[in-house]
């Protein structure tokens, strides 16, 4: 019988093309086929909670840890990381180039009311963006909606800078679409490096946006992999999941990640190697 491992992951691992390099090798070496379901981080974690998949591979560290704490996952294994970059129009209307620190850049953008595009989709990137806004001291607004879950009323909250008027656009879409949008509107946005490289160097016509701020602990973007807990969902294929975890955090997997180049640029940095 065919061994199939079902994995939920964020779109960025898939659309960056990394999985297309990793999985065929893994499949050849272990005889395990990996069925990849790529979606937003929120939905991917949700898949794990619901036991629809055997393993999740995402980038939202706090939520990953919560996932493990609540008993849905056995353990978070760090796999790799890359970083977020703040990009914007070459003309740089908010003059952010003179600043090096991401929080002050965001502050300046808010003060100048320069157009900023937000993912607004609770993805890893969006979670990061919200945290950065909070750190930058820009006043945040909270918006909540009441919904019912398991018979109880609960609030669904979202945060965004106050006084946004028309400069802060929350578009609730994937990274690629946000880049396209920002390019069209010549606006600033926060992106993961992989997608940015792809859209800047791998696409014709390329986006015009440039990196205006990068580096620093605050912009780190770690990816973790978590097998779904068989104690919670007995049907999951924990054994295959662990085989994959061992492989990807092992030498073979880590080397492949390290060697992966998109448009000649390194995208991900292995955590274990």
């Amino acid at each position: 019988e065919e061994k199939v491992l079902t994995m939920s992951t964020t779109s960025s691992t898939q659309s960056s093309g990394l999985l297309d390099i990793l999985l065929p090798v893994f499949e050849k070496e272990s005889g395990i086929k990996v069925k990849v379901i790529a979606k937003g981080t929120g939905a991917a974690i949700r898949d794990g909670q619901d036991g629809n998949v055997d393993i999740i591979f995402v980038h939202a560290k706090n939520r990953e840890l919560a996932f493990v704490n609540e008993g849905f996952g056995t353990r978070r294994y760090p796999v790799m990381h890359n970083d977020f970059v703040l990009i914007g129009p070459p003309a740089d209307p908010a003059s952010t180039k003179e600043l090096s620190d991401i929080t002050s850049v965001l502050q300046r953008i808010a003060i100048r009311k320069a157009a900023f595009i937000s993912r607004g989709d609770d993805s890893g990137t969006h979670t990061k963006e919200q945290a950065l806004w909070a750190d930058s001291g820009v006043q945040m607004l909270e918006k909540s909606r009441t919904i019912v879950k398991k018979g109880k009323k609960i609030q669904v909250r979202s945060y965004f800078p106050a006084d946004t008027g028309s400069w802060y656009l929350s578009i609730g879409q994937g990274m690629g679409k946000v880049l396209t949008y920002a390019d069209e509107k010549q606006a600033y946005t926060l992106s993961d490096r992989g997608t940015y490289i792809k859209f800047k160097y791998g696409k014709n016509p390329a986006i015009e946006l440039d990196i205006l701020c990068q580096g620093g602990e605050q912009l780190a973007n770690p990816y973790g992999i978590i097998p779904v807990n068989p104690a919670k969902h007995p049907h999951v294929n924990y054994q295959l999941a662990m085989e994959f975890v061992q492989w990807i955090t092992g030498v073979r997997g880590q080397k492949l990640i390290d060697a992966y180049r998109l448009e000649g640029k390194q995208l991900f940095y292995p955590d274990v190697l």
Partner: protein
Amino acid sequence: MDLLVNSVQSAFLLLFSGDPELLTIVWVSLKVSGISTVIASLFGIPAGFLIAYSHFHGKRFVLTCLNTLLALPTVVIGLLVYSFIARRGIFGSLELLYTQKAIIIGQVILIVPLVTSLSIAAISKIDSRYRKTALTLGANQRQMAWVIIKEARYGIGAAVIAAFGRVIAEIGISMMLGGNARGFTRTMTTAMALEYDKGEFVLAVALGLTLMSIAFAINLLFHFFQGRDAIDVV
């Protein structure tokens, strides 16, 4: 099961919360899909009449093409329209991208084939004596067309309703050409897709149910206008 129950309750809360953001979203949805449907009907019904009632070489080919266009995926429409109205496209200077107008353009392209093709089906089953009678009684081409369209109104009505349903439930084009910008081009469906992406399934379904209630209200209105007789058969 849970999901459904929770969502129904949440939908009620949403509907009665009077949340201004939700109202905006509903209004944008209705406006955009309403306008798209009207434009597509104004174009598709006469086109359907013309195609059904003319003889020309390659008519079968045109029909096959129309039916093929029914399978036009929203991604393709989105990208093609995008390539024209993007900043660097031919119509870039009109600044249409990420506006409601852009959604309307895309949606019209999406449903014109549907309205046309279903209108042809409805119109071509109308007894040819209607045409002859109208003409012999002195109708000109336009008046004759009107007679035929009136006789086919139930089928055409169904086409228009189907088209409206298609666009109000449509996500791809609204996302790609509208951009799902909060307060500007966010529609019920893009909002729903967003909540789904976030993993907020209850909220997504609740928004969907809100959409359905609104669609229901509109259909009630439509039925009312279409009149009693349309459905009396046997």
